[in-house]
């Protein structure tokens, strides 16, 4: 944990079992333990089906673990709440609200005047560079823009942690890079913790202070790596290449073992 010291999220000894259609159990996670520090940026990486989404949803409070415990600020997580923002892989913006209304939605729970809510929402959209699109509906926005609005919507309620499930997987490579730069900037500005799920090794090394590598069948953590290189990171550097090679090797090993 290179930034914060106190542990914000404690996942300890968690197993998650899903009942299949015939009632047969699938182990999505087995005995997973992980700590996320306050203000830390952690990437979860692993092949499809290794339980990344499951782990994220446990932290979000969408699921309760079959075994083990998930705690947030030393309190067991009982359900979703505004202290843990989520950015989904699929577009989760409310289709019936404009970008501004989407961002404003989370502020309704706070004791704010209409005008203050509106201003905060516009500020948040400004921070992701979308002030001009405030009155557009999601279907009028590109994929990258929608994810920016989703990030703005999640951040405007000032969560302690941002849980992101492959948020940039559906956008083109160039847009993805801009989104990554923006995310790093917002992370530094707000001091929020980030748990970021990705399939993409390059993305993990570019973003994370710590990369957690997972393997499937059953989902488990294979390794954790602290990356203490300064931001912004140089994708062409030797260190970057080295990390890429070792994580890539670990992923193929994990997948091959499982297959």
């Amino acid at each position, binding site marked *: 944990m290179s930034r914060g010291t106190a542990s914000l999220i404690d996942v300890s000894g968690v197993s998650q079992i899903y009942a299949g259609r015939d009632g047969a159990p699938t182990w999505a996670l087995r005995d997973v333990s992980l700590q996320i520090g306050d203000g830390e940026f952690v990437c979860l990486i692993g092949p499809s089906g290794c339980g990344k989404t499951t782990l994220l949803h446990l932290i*979000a*409070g*969408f699921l309760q673990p079959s075994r083990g415990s998930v705690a947030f600020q030393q309190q067991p997580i009982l*359900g*979703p*709440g*505004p202290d*843990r*923002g*989520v950015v*989904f892989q*699929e577009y*989760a913006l*409310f*289709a*019936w*609200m404009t970008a501004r209304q989407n961002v404003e*939605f*989370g502020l*309704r*729970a706070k004791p704010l005047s209409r005008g203050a809510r509106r201003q905060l929402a516009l500020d948040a959209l400004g921070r992701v560079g979308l002030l001009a699109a405030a009155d557009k*509906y*999601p*279907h*009028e926005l590109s994929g990258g823009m929608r994810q920016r609005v989703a990030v703005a*919507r*999640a951040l405007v*309620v000032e969560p302690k942690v941002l849980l992101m499930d492959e948020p940039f997987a559906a956008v083109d490579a160039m847009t993805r890079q801009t989104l990554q730069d923006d995310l790093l900037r917002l992370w530094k500005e707000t001091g929020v913790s980030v748990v970021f799920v990705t399939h993409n090794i390059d993305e993990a090394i570019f973003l994370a202070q710590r990369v957690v590598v997972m393997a499937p069948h059953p989902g488990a953590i294979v390794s954790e790596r602290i990356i203490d290189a300064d931001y912004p990171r140089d994708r062409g550097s030797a260190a970057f290449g080295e990390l890429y090679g070792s994580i890539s090797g670990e992923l193929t090993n994990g997948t091959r073992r499982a297959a």
Partner: protein
Amino acid sequence: MTTISDIDLSDNTHPASPSFEAQFRAANEHARRKAQLTRLTLNILGLMLFIAIWEVIPRYSDWVNEVLFPPPSTVLQAFIPMLTSGEIGRNIAISLQRAGLGFAIALASGIMLGLVTARVRWLQYLTEPLLHGFRAIPTIALVPLCVLWFGIGEPSKVVLVAWGAFFPIWITTFIGVRDINLIYLRSAACLGASRRDTLLLVVLPAALPFILSGIRQSIAVSLIVLVAAELSGASAGVAYMMSQGHQLFRVDIMFIGLALLGTFGFLADRVFVALARWLFPWYAAS
């Protein structure tokens, strides 16, 4: 839709200049207007063609009886005195009142019950056999019973329309709310939304496409049930007017009723579509 290729931009101004943009807008607007006009012209032409054929055939052929199938000119001759005497207006007002009131009751109760039965599991299980069972009964089969229970006055008509129009709205609201994308509920939950905000600002709008299709069905059902109710005993209303025409052997009056009912249905549907577009601008496009 107009595409750029439909638009004539013969003047060679610089593509980025404001005058080019203005030209593009004007050309686009022009093409749109033209397409609209063509459509409207053809719509009217179709209607006129139909009226012309309807006029000519009973008049000049010997295989259609003019009394059993009066041409539009005859129908119009019957229509005008009935209109000026206020008879038509009164019947329309009464029919619309019945249909409107019944439909409004169905709308409110259908959405409310659909919402509740989809969100509260035990209520769903408690009521689903009943609701589905009642839904399976054609409303028209209830007309005689309703007349027995409520008489031939207004209540029996309103109750019948409300009953018939309720089920399409209830079932579509139920399905729309039950099948709401989990991601919307989860998004609302992790933004700390209250139950009320989640229900009114997330669940209902997410189910809206379903609800709107139910409302549209209900509008059609309201009209059908209204006619059945009025035919089975009433002292006023458009369908009552038609049954009077039947007894007097006045097919022209019956035709007036048909034309009125067709117009109601058509206008109600148009108004509904326009209202939905205006209230929910995101709906048509997304």
